[in-house]
């Protein structure tokens, strides 16, 4: 992966757009594009490439020219002010919603529309969306069932994973009997059991306490490395974004686009103490500045 570290205001590492080598139509002025993309790296390394993704709901424009490329095996975290369009972006990449006309998407080297992506990425939505009539186990194996795994086999598989998610003994409970954090862990488990190369996680650890969160993070990194998955991960916690990601995408206020692409060059495995290392703090400050600016905008902006 190539990195472009040109100087930018506030010391942020902006990746400057390079017109050359890319069709004009997919680019708009002022957008940050990924270096690999700009350098025309081989398609084979890219699992997902989005250019100029725009999405409008009635009078509200949620996304406006979101452009980014995700490489195979990358762990990319996405941060951005509340309401900037992160969940909308994920809905599009999960294949659930088509962007406005005129947007280009490539998945595993092929040009696709959103609907083509259905069933090809594992997606964990922001709300857990557990089915109230299914037990914890049966909620967890939902995706496996859809894939056609025999129920018995799927259940056995899930049963074994319960302790890893701190849900041991809760397999036969129903969602309304769980706490907020437990529900989120069931949703997470459901996503993990649906094994796809690209994983989209929308604030998966939002409702977890510090330690459970740390344990789940470690576990996630483990899965990611062992199984060579590619992960797109939304969080509102900058520490988490830096601790986990190879790269952090900072989104602008609504309408969302990429404001800043920050490469995280910290060595792996990253110990817990890394959060107090000077390099980490430096990166964090850069991100916080960028986010703060956008969040201020989004907070004071009128709707629409």
């Amino acid at each position, binding site marked *: 992966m190539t990195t472009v570290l040109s100087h930018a205001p506030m010391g942020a590492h902006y990746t400057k757009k390079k017109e050359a080598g890319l069709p004009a139509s997919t680019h708009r002025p002022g957008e940050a594009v990924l270096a690999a993309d700009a350098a025309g790296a081989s398609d084979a390394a890219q699992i997902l490439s989005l250019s100029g993704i725009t999405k409008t709901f009635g009078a509200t424009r949620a996304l406006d020219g979101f452009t980014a490329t995700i490489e195979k095996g990358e762990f990319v975290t996405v941060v951005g002010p509340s309401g900037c369009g992160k969940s909308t972006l994920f809905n599009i990449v999960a294949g659930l919603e088509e962007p406005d006309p005129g947007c280009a998407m490539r998945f595993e080297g092929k040009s696709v529309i959103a609907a083509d992506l259905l069933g*090809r990425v*594992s997606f964990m939505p922001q709300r857990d969306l557990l*089915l109230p009539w299914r037990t914890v186990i049966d909620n967890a194996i*939902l995706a496996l069932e859809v894939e056609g795994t025999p129920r018995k086999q799927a259940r056995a598989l899930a049963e074994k994973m319960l302790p890893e998610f701190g849900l041991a003994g809760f397999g036969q409970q129903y969602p309304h009997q769980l706490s907020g954090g437990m529900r989120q862990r069931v949703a997470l488990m459901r996503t993990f059991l649906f094994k796809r190369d690209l994983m989209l996680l929308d604030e998966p650890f939002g409702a977890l306490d510090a330690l459970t969160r740390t344990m789940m993070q470690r576990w996630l990194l483990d899965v990611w490395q062992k199984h060579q998955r590619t992960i797109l991960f939304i969080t509102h916690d900058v520490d988490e974004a830096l601790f986990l990601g190879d790269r952090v995408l900072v989104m602008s206020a609504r309408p969302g686009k990429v404001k800043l692409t920050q490469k995280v060059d910290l060595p792996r495995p990253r110990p817990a103490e890394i959060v107090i290392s000077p390099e980490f703090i430096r990166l964090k400050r850069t991100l916080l500045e960028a986010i703060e600016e956008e969040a201020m905008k989004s907070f004071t902006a009128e709707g629409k």
Partner: protein
Amino acid sequence: MSAATLQSPAARPGTSPLVTALFRAVRGLATLLAVLAAVEGLVVVLNVKPWYVPRPTLVLNAILATPEPYVQGFLRTLTETLMGFTSGAIFGVGIAIVFFRARVLRELIFPVFVVSQTIPVIAFGALVVLWFGNTLIAKAAISFYLTFFPVTVNALLGLESVDPRQEALMRSFGASRFQLLTRLQLPAALPQIFVALRLASALSLVGAIVGEWFGDTVGLGVLLLQGMYNENVVAIWAAIAMCALLGTGFYAVVAAAERALVFWGAEQ
């Protein structure tokens, strides 16, 4: 226990369903006996003419005097009701699924369904006999005709009110339309479907009874009709009591099935 829990239709875990069912049955019986005793008392005290309201004991005596026709009629009508109910429920849900899936078909055919429901069956007794003869099928057909429509309307409502985000999630797993239906839409629509089934339990019985009016020899409907036109008030009430017994019993069974199947109530 909070008031909300008390009102919640879902059985709370902790009490055995059998015990609850037994408790309900006993309580229901007790209420019934109390009401009957009150009616008996009122009729005697106020000296109500028997052709307005006969004494419940008189009605009971009438049933006990010739129990066979009542028992036979009960069983026969029950059979017809079950046939009509089952076919109506299956068809109702099935056609709702078809309409849900194919908007064009729905817009094309639904008005025809509505119109079909405005045909007073009893104006066409002869036609019913002509088409179905004096068979069980004839009664089941009328019972079916009264049953399927509310089931269709409610099932359609249920299918349409599935949380779109849940549907989106299933689609992101690559769920086929069939899987979407069996794993999400049908279970999610179950509460609404059961509302219609409870209604249908009463309507299917009505259908069976009216069906028996078209030249049948056995059944509660026959007894009812005989009582009505002979102005044998005791016989009318005896038949009505049997109908009510059958109807409430059937309703209770459907409601119990609902409690067992839709245990999650309105929880998300």
